[in-house]
């Protein structure tokens, strides 16, 4: 049997790695990948909790898996739009460094 505490711990570790990637990297592509990593960590937590409560008083429960599918769809949409933004940013600035995009910064 799987150690389900450790599944949730692994999810927390992956989420933290994603947060650190978003916070410290300046390459917009890697930042988008780190966001994907955070979404995956959340998915892992969903699947782990659904495995713990796979039936509630005899009724099978699958809601965690449904939410994972929704998160995957949202992630796909987010990547499509994010990479579109990246492409137009590269066209305007000739760089993917996020520190150069500071027009709204005071």
């Amino acid at each position, binding site marked *: *049997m*799987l*150690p*389900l*505490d*450790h*599944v*949730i*711990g*692994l999810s*927390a*570790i*992956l989420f*933290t*790695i*994603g*947060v*650190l*990637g978003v*916070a*410290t*990297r*300046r*390459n917009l*592509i890697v930042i*988008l*990948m*780190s966001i*994907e*990593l955070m979404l995956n960590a959340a*998915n*892992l937590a969903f*699947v782990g909790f659904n*495995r713990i*409560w*796979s*039936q509630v008083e005899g009724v*099978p429960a*699958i809601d965690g*898996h*449904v939410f*994972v*599918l*929704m998160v*995957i769809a*949202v*992630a*796909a*949409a*987010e*990547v*499509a739009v994010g*990479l*579109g*933004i990246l*492409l*137009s940013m590269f066209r305007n600035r000739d760089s*993917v*460094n996020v*520190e150069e995009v500071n027009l709204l910064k005071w």
Partner: protein
Amino acid sequence: MTVEAILFYVFGILAVVSALGMVLNIRNTVASAMSLVVTMVSLGAIYLLLEAYLVAVIQIMVYGGAIVVLFLFVVMLLNLSTDEFPPGKQRVAKLAVVIVGVAILAQVLVALGQAPLLVAQPEAVPEGFGGYRQLGLSLYTDYVLLVEMVSLLLLAAIVGALILAKRKID
């Protein structure tokens, strides 16, 4: 320790190491994307161990097959083999973020170690758990509104990506 637990630890360590490789690799963006593939496939294997069969297949198809390929395609399109930026300015802020993130992670892990809120030995899954039949029935009865909303979201994303990728809107 059972075979399942050993497999879980192997794939978990693989996922963490390749995720770190993705974030820490500052030279090669393509290698970062490849590390991301390894993380996604390891997570798919862990989903299999958690008896989420359909989700595991979709994870590998959508993440390993589509999303990472999209990333690689953009890297190739922009011709960004290396990623050498001059050193950044906000070193203190970044260091603070790292410290706070690691502190929160440590707190979560300590709380998980102390509190017995998770069932250590969950009961066996019901028949057909995580298969397409149960998931499909749930999707198209209880969550049918959610499916419709996701379809609208995907449509909006397609239109948005097309408009963003167009050079000039006439």
